[in-house]
């Protein structure tokens, strides 16, 4: 049954090869564009950005956003447990407790480091 997937492997392969060859060729033969070229601009398609792209958003925003992602994603481990809560029993509770304790240490760290304070 695996041979059915053979075309996919080949697709993967041909895609990688063709893409790779084109890139290597253009990299080797094309003119050298150094740093700070168009490739760095926010919209490489040529749209001229209006205003200063570097209007600063407070870095705390990013930190908070990153922290949110981290803690948010850990929830994925809670869903399967919640579904199977009954079947897993006390052992499940113990394991999940341990998992949460580790998360809590992370939380305490973030809190004590002041990452949660807006000022």
């Amino acid at each position: 049954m695996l041979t059915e997937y053979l075309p996919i492997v080949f697709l993967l392969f041909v895609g990688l090869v063709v893409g790779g060859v084109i890139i290597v060729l253009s990299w080797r033969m094309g003119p050298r564009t150094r740093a700070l070229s168009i490739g760095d601009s926010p919209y490489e398609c040529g749209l001229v950005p209006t205003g200063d792209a570097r209007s600063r958003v407070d870095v705390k925003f990013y930190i908070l956003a990153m922290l949110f992602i981290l803690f948010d994603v850990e929830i994925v481990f809670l869903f399967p447990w919640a579904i199977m809560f009954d079947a897993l029993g006390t052992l499940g509770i113990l394991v999940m407790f341990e998992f949460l304790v580790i998360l809590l240490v992370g939380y305490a760290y973030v809190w004590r480091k002041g990452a949660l304070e807006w000022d």
Partner: protein
Amino acid sequence: MAANWIWLVPALPLAGVLVNGLLGRRIGKGGVSVIGPGMVGAAFAVSLWLFLDLAARAPEARTLSQNVYTWISAGDFRASVAFLVDPLSATLMLVVTGVGFLIHVYSVGYMHDEDRRGFARYFTYLNLFTFAMLVLVMADNFLLLFVGWEGVGLCSYLLIGFWFKDRANATAGKKAFIVNRIGDFGFLLGIFLMFGAFGSVAFADVLPSAATVLDAGGPLAFWICLFLFVGAVGKSAQIPLYVWLPDAMAGPTPVSALIHAATMVTAGVYMVARSHALYDMAPAVLAIVAGIGAATALYAATIGLVQTDIKKVLAYSTISQLGYMFLGVGVAAYAAGIFHLVTHAFFKALLFLGAGSVIHALHGEQDMRRMGGLKRALPVTYWTMLAATLAIAGIPPLAGFFSKDEILWRTWDAGHPVLWAIGLATAGLTALYMFRLFFLTFHGSFRGTGEQRQHLHESPPSMTIPLTVLGALSVVGGWIGIPPAIGQTLGGVPNAIESWLAPVFADAHAEGAAHAAGEAHAIPPMEYALMAASIAVALLGILAARYLWLTRPELPVRIGLQFRVAATVLSNKYYVDELYDAIVVRPYNALSHFAWRVIDEGLIDGLVVGGTGAVVRWQSRVSSAWQSGAIPTYVTVFFGGVVAILVYYLFG
């Protein structure tokens, strides 16, 4: 039981290493001067005891061994730290500890200007060298032999670069080490092939079964022996891996005497002799050994003739003499090769130490053009050097005569007249360049500075006593190997060393064995003729040297200058000289210079050593050119690797 105490022999110098290395600065120069030589002296005493113990046994039972511990044990593979004392290794042990002891004593005087720290460091290295060399000669398997082999290389490297303030010394040390690694590479491959064929690397397993496991003349025997010989070529400075030895003279002179003349460089000869059972299965390799030996002997002798640095002359002389030893083992005259190894250790160590004494007296001067007339100021050095020079020139009844002549005779006897002729020519050259050195140094008038003349002095007793002892050995050392041709006329004096070594080489060629055992044997008249020839050649060389550098000291100098033909024709007296110059000396000098400047420095040094380096450096540049520092390049190379592997799997 003597066998239980074998470990003491290497352990004593090792103890010296520990004491000098760890406490050297605390016990001071006095303490170091006692411990350093003392430990080696004690090792000599134990070796002597073991030797006597062996000698008291029946010839077949002359083997002692001691297993200290199992070093590596991996599956079928076992290598032990185990020592073997048989006639061959006992001989070498005596040479290493005996000559080593004398050189240690000498060093106490020679190095007395060093500060406390340098002094302790020097003796630590020297003791370490002795330890490694003993491991090398006493090992009972090839792997342990290799350990000693690497160890002596390491010490050699450390001692060459001892005075490291000098950049040239450091480079020389590095060169020695790297050239030796090339040799070691061959050696290690040889050991692996051997392990593949025999399933063991112990002498006791490999050597007796060589004849059954290997086909005589087969490819396996050929490659094993060839690879081992590559190792020997590196360590014993033969063509084409000899380039490091002349440079190695940058180290202190006693080091040159011990390592680069008497012991380490002869390890290759020992190794070939030790594995003679393998070489007997590979006659083609033996022929290569003999050929390279003879070629090196002649080649190095020609270069030795035009050197002006006293130690360089001796260095090329050592290479040349090592060539003799390989010629000997190459014609399956293993005992003769070892015999020459022993006598050479005596007289060459003495020559180096004598040269050291001269250099010491002249405060570091090594150029013979600025010496001369030192006979009066350095009487002990003079007389002992005379003995050594006569010995190396091959004048009977000194040591060199017997051993060299034995090799020459066995070469002829084995049916190699060409190699014999090369050997004979080399003997003449040896006499020529050695007496050149001798006359330039001790005779004539002093050519150094007035200040040097004021400070001329004979060396202290710690230096002259070893000189005297070695001088005596250079005179009588050859008597242990008096060939039957002379021995029988003297009333049955036996060839002691051949019969002593006979049990080790017993399974060599049957004809050789009979010969070695000293059985009554019809002496072909040819042997006397050859003997006479080599004495005549040696005398000729001495006379020529006397004429060129003593009677007419201006002559060799003028040879090198541009010559005015008209002026020379005027004088009848010079006419003969001119002819001689034109026909013999000038082409010869040109050839020597060619060999030295072009082949030695240009071709081998520049092309082989330097060229390899250049190729590697170029490769290195190419490799790191890819390392552009830019992430896109890295990603691309990475991706190229992925694609290559996928291509292989999906289409390969």
